[in-house]
């Protein structure tokens, strides 16, 4: 079960700051809801885990993250994450290329292109939800990333961003998360309809 994602997040800060944060692997991993780096092996190899609670089911993935490349000229990070859930019934991989791109007004955008693939029970049971779920996880990731970059600065915006980050739950919250997936799904339905009508 494979999903290809291509997302762009607007960041209210300079590309230099964003690029600085993008190279902080444990920091970036921490932007992923429910994820953390548990062990740094060397500059390009880390161990991490992702924990998600959806309804009564808890899924915890332990895995390896490998930095495949950091291109300072392009401000591009390429990483490969591979994990297996601790119960041994599913596994997941993510191949992500993240790029910081300048936008107008001295601000920037984070562009992420990812291929996520899931095997085992997670694919059998969650296959039809996977696009929406991955989409929502990435939305939260983008938001956290932007806040982290903002928090590096000073002033009101930075304080607000810090506050929002502090409120983030340590693990992916099932019910709230499921709700956001559902709302996202509804929105996509209506988006589709209005697009058709305008044709």
């Amino acid at each position, binding site marked *: *079960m*494979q999903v290809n994602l291509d997302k762009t997040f607007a960041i209210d800060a300079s590309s230099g700051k964003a690029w600085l944060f993008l190279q902080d692997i444990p920091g970036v991993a921490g932007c992923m809801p429910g994820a953390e780096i548990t062990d740094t092996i060397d500059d390009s190899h880390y161990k991490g885990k992702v924990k998600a609670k959806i309804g009564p089911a808890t899924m915890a993935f332990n895995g390896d993250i490998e930095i495949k490349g950091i291109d300072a000229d392009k401000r591009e990070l390429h990483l490969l994450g591979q994990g297996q859930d601790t119960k*041994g019934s599913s596994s997941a991989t993510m191949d992500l290329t993240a790029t910081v791109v300048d936008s107008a007004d001295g601000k920037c955008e984070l562009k992420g292109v990812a291929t996520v693939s899931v*095997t085992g*029970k997670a*694919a*059998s049971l969650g*296959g039809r939800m996977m696009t929406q779920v991955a989409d929502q996880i990435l939305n939260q990731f983008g938001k956290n990333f932007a806040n982290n970059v903002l928090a590096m600065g000073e002033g009101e915006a930075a304080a607000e961003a810090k506050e929002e980050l502090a409120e983030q739950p340590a693990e992916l919250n099932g019910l709230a998360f499921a709700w956001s997936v559902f709302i996202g799904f509804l929105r996509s339905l209506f988006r589709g309809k209005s697009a058709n009508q305008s044709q």
Partner: protein
Amino acid sequence: MATAEDRVKADIEREDALQGIGCSRKRKEDPRFVQGKGTYVDDVKLPGTLYADLVRSPFAHARIKGINKEKALALPGVHAVLTAEDLKPLNLHWMPTLAGDVQAVLADEKVHMQYQEVAVVIADDRYIAADAVDLVEVEYEALPVLVDPHKALDPDAPILREDAEDKDNVGQGPRKHPNHIFNWQVGDAEATERAFDEAEVTVKQEMYYPRVHPSPLETCGCVASFDKVNGKLDVYITSQAPHVVRTVVSMLSGVPESKVRIVSPDIGGGFGNKVGIYPGYVTAIVASIVIGRPVKWIEDRMEHLSTTAWARDYWMTGELAADKDGRIKGLKVDVLADHGAFNSHAQPTKWPAGFLSICTGSYDIPVAHVNVDGVYTNKSPGGVAYRCSFRVTEAVYVIERMMDVLAQKLGIDKAEIRRRNFVKPEQFPYETCLGWELDSGDYHTALDKVLAAVDYEGLRKEQAEKRAKGELMGIGLVTFTEVVGAGPSKNCDILGVGMFDSAEIRVHPTGSAIARMGTITQGQGHQTTYAQIIASELGIPSEEIQIEEGDTDTAPYGLGTYGSRSTPVGGAATAVAARKIRDKARKIAAHLMEVSEDDVEWDIDRFKVKGVPGQEKTMKEVAWAAYNNVPEGMEMGLEAVDYYDPPNFTYPFGTYLCVVDIDKYTGVVDIRRFYALDDCGTRINPMIIEGQVHGGLNEGFAVAMGQEMPYDEEGNLLGNTFMDYFIPTFVETPHWETDYTVTPSPHHPLGAKGVAESPHVGSIPCFTAAIVDALAHLDVTHVDMPHNAYRVWQTLHELGADKRD
């Protein structure tokens, strides 16, 4: 004075009282089932039972780098965690399959499919076992996955079965690639080629018969109980072939067969899924032998759909050669068969593609050739006969689809082209060009009866009118012949045991009887119908006849129930055993009446002296005498056993017609009418036949309209929950109309042929035919299953048929 009419009436009453052959006797099984009082495997509760649960692979193809049991073993209540390493000293980490291959009981260094069994946990209860499964740590190294069977024989394809890489034969003849299982050919290739070269018309059609799962209501499971004191092994198991299981278990475990007892209790449906032997059974048995306590293993639904035997998965190409009038001159069938990771195809041993060569169908075809290649892929193993004889569903599908393709090409009506090619009634017994001897049939009568019943011409007229208005209406027609009742032991065996079946009947002194068979009912109603056969043969009311099956300690050896073999083989054994008893009873009756045996005639429930009214002895009286007053030199008692080796298969047939209306904007198919005429020879219980036909049609509807087990490119199975896998209920199922003709089998003692699978085999191509027929004017010759609304809409959309004016 009793008039002749009174006597006839009295005879009829006497006959009715027996509730014998031809009576719509109510099923004896139903009172316990509708009250929830059946005893299924999971209802077997033995003192001290432990529970097994399996660690399964999330990968379709991976090397196992390590298994860490420590955390699981540390969980209180866990007795053992076994892996292939633990089974190796017992040589039980691999087991033989019915198809001559081997299958891993627990993955040996590699996993070859998703959900493959990697380790087994034995614990105090089901919950602890499940928790412990989560604690077993398995480290995998993912390998390239082979999902598409068309790529299996590529030079650079990943090699799946390293254990068999160097073998030039994995049980079914020479092979040409490490992922190749067998090549099977039947018929005269050269003569067929010639027929095609010389033909006025040829047609060719590719079609895919999707992988589907029988998914009976009850999943698979067993309770194994080894008694260390007396060395006896009892196994309660969901098996359609308990005696074969006993032989295999004895061979695998080394426990003498006399100390192995297999019990198939009530079974919640089998449909071919419960013929084979699964790793879960083996692990439970091994665990019980090692620990010395009963071990229960019951699958959940996901495990069931993911790993136990599925059916079909045939990529078929059919070709017909014909003259301009539609008379067939030759047939070619070419198949690529996806067997999954192990060849655990269930079939008589010498038939790698089952009875696929019955694919000449109901037609007089002079020459044909069939070619089948089987390959390994990273998918679960299977290929069972899902409510059919081995691969007959595929055979009927390909020939019936090809008849329509030819009809469309020539512009001949689909009923007419069948009529022109039917084997004629006077040609029976008819030897097909691929070596089958069709025992009896009257295809023309069956077809005519159905066409008249539905007003075929009227339907075609209506269809033309609807087409003119832009509406989609289709008429599917199928005139199939099945082959059931495997089978003559000269060409059918399972692991070397001939495919006979058996019955043992004992008549008690007071005239009631008990009978035991080698078959096993899973919903077919054997407890009802076998008693009816004995009632008619012996004149004992069926209410006083007890039928028992499924306990190998008591029942005579038989090959079990699948491929509609119960009536053709087990039913024949029952009739023959009853006749042996009647022959003895006749001698006793003659002795009692002090006349010659030749002067005694049988009349419903008694022996009469010819020409001497009132001189008679009922079977009940004879039964009493059998235990105290038999002719000199005769042994006491009244019982017989018969092991029946059928001289031929039986060939039930039918004509099915389906009318559909398709909503061209949504793809929703409304099955307006489905008319099923079956000819199964002598009809033992018309009500049970009706029920079986309904059940078969329902399952045919499920396969044609919604069932499939798709895999993605990583080998993830995406159809293994009831969210995805289509099980029709009352809501979706259309109304069925049934009908029949009776053309008895000339070689079966009762003339009966077996029926429960015909409706499955016959209906599936009929649904497809109806969908295609609705689109025939758009030059559509075939549409692959399943025909759910989305897929039908996709077809309509591609054709541009869903455009609004």
